[in-house]
């Protein structure tokens, strides 16, 4: 192999050049490795953060899905439940009168000492010879359970004088104690439960009277302050559902329609430029500002009710609109011009071209944008606080005009509850439900997109 025929002087210059390059190579490669290492570090950090966040939520929230239940035998003692017979509707009695009579009877039932019934049931369940005072006995069981006994009785007055097995929720404090979410070594004065209750709880757990069961009531109950162990997400869930329905019913048609107008029909001039800038900005306006708009415009000016899903839904609709408009426009823009020209060439009008040919092609894009927008709206919290949806509501809203909570607002409420030991887990569980819903929505978006794109 022959080497370059270049003269000796050039070769020397080449050699000098190469020497200089070689001299800095080690340093340059080190810099390269450091830079790349920083990149890897950044990626690993980001992944680790995702991992930590999910680990925190799941490890804290997972235990809340099982809860201590106490299987008691309840004696509907006629001496304690000293009430008249349940009223029967007389012939010719008006609706209102019968209702009043019935209510009076129920009031009487409510006034019975249900605590005593519960207390007796706990005592019966305790091992023989176990000494326990009334307060300690009652502290074992969730306070709301006495209302459940009352409801059982109201529904079936024949229970009087009978012994019935009833599975009751243990109180939040009992649950804490048994799960160890409270430090079991703290001295008596700093424990929530008396020594007697703690000892009884331990013994009942051992003999199987207390057992951990899946806490379905997280999904079926409404929020409760007096009976934290029975607090559930049903009300918040329905509130969120209403809002999402409103968002879907309003934001999707309006968003798609305005995207179509702006992309296909609007003349390109100063005004449409301004609208474009305006929509892009709207997408970046802080969510809390939309909350202020809701409070001032919808509640104050239009007189819509506070804390109602209708207002929340409208506010979230306005927030979601820009997302849907922007995404729809970009999928409209992605439709090849050849398709439009083909349609117009066949004599279709512009409207026909858009609705018969262009829109069906963009359906997957619009659908994905919609679902992502809805998922975003589902998790939005700040504007809901401004329009009062963080109010405590212990009922399932019957219509979107009733007071209601929403999932993220419920999370906000629960994280602020004083019974930290219990509600940290409850909050995490609620977060898990919310994240699962959002994940499911996103998964649906991905699946639908794939199916529609394959079909198209």
């Amino acid at each position, binding site marked *: *192999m022959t080497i370059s025929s270049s003269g000796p002087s050039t070769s020397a210059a080449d050699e000098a050049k190469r020497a200089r390059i070689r001299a800095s190579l080690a340093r340059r*490669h080190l810099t390269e490795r450091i830079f790349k290492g920083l990149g890897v570090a950044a990626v690993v950090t980001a992944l680790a953060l995702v991992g930590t966040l999910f680990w925190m939520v799941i490890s804290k929230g997972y235990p809340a899905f099982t809860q201590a239940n106490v299987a008691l035998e309840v004696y509907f003692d006629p001496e304690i439940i000293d009430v008249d017979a349940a009223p029967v509707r007389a012939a010719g009695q008006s609706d209102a009168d019968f209702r009043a009579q019935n209510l009076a009877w129920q009031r009487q039932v409510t006034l019975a000492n249900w605590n005593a019934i519960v207390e007796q049931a706990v005592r019966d369940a305790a091992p023989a010879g176990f000494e326990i005072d009334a307060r300690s006995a009652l502290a074992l069981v969730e306070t709301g359970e006495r209302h459940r006994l009352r409801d059982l009785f109201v529904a079936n007055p024949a229970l009087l004088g009978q012994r019935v097995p009833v599975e009751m929720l243990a109180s939040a404090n009992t649950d804490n104690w048994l799960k160890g979410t409270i430090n079991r070594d703290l001295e008596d004065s700093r424990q929530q439960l008396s020594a007697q209750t703690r000892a009884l709880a331990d013994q009942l757990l051992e003999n199987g009277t207390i057992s951990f069961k899946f806490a379905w009531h997280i999904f079926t109950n409404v929020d409760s302050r007096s009976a934290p162990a029975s607090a559930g997400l049903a009300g918040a869930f329905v509130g969120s559902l209403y809002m999402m329905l409103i968002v879907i019913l309003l934001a999707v048609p309006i968003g798609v329609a305005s995207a179509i107008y702006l992309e296909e029909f609007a003349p390109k001039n100063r005004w449409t430029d301004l609208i474009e800038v305006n929509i892009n900005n709207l997408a970046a306006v802080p969510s809390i500002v939309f909350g202020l708009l809701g409070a001032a415009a919808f509640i104050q000016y239009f007189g819509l009710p506070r804390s109602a899903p209708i207002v929340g839904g409208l506010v979230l609709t306005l927030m979601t609109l820009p997302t849907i408009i922007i995404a729809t426009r970009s999928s409209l823009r992605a439709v090849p011009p050849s398709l439009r020209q083909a349609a117009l060439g066949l004599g279709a009008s512009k409207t026909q071209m858009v609705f018969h040919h262009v829109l069906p092609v963009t359906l997957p894009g619009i659908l994905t944008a919609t679902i992502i927008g809805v998922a975003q709206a589902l998790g939005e919290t700040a504007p809901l606080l401004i329009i009062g949806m963080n109010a405590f509501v212990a009922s399932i809203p019957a219509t979107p005009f009733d007071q209601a909570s929403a999932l993220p607002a419920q999370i906000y409420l629960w994280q602020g509850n004083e019974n930290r030991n219990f509600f940290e887990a409850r909050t995490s569980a609620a977060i898990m439900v919310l994240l699962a819903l959002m994940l499911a929505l996103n998964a649906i978006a991905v699946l639908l997109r794939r199916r529609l794109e394959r079909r198209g």
Partner: protein
Amino acid sequence: MDMMAGKFAANVTPLEEGMSLSDHPIRLEARDVCVHYGAKQALYDVSIDIPDRAVTAFIGPSGCGKSTFLRCINRMNDTIEGARVTGRIALDGEDVYDRSLDVVELRARVGMVFQKPNPFPKSIFENVAYGPKIHGMVRNKAEAEEVVVSSLKRAGLFEEVKDRLHEPGTGLSGGQQQRLCIARAIATRPEVLLMDEPCSALDPIATAIIEELIDELRENFTIVIVTHSMQQAARVSQKTAFFHLGKLIEEGDTANIFTNPAKKQTQDYIMGRIG
């Protein structure tokens, strides 16, 4: 055939008086080079010798593998995910795909000019000084200035831009931008200069200027140029290689290839029968 010979013969840049291509030592030597992109093979067993201080042109229809082969020489194919190169390419007898070879150093020795002018969004000065600076070839501003001025002069651009060296390079015309890129490439004083269709984005006048420049640069550099224009190959090169469907069909003195091709495919291409 005679008609064709007449069409090209006048254009061919003759070698120096009394010197044939075989007098030029071989600078680059490729043996059995194959390139795969993923499962697809783009280049089949290419073997060719590239002479020193002469212009070698690769011609062929688009997608024939000529650019792919060019990018093997300075290992630019490394930057494409899934690209795999086998075979041997030696620069001065050193295998460029050898593990011990530093690709940074290789690319300092083998410069490249691309199809579309791609000046960095920096000043003209910074564009040219970029290579010498990263390679530590200049130690101070004076040295940098010297390199910049001499490179711009060699690229024939200095007179046009000497008053606006600190204005952005992206503000120049297309032809000027491409000459800036050539100046940038020769500023690191490479031994080999690869040009990937350097005139395809330029108008005829700018093309003529660049072709003239290539002819001048031949004095100091080993130049390999990929072109889709046969006329250009005939005008600027001394050696021509014809690629088709990933294979090297024929190579030889430019004059020979155009006037007396040995293979039918080459003939067809030159006659315009393969696009």
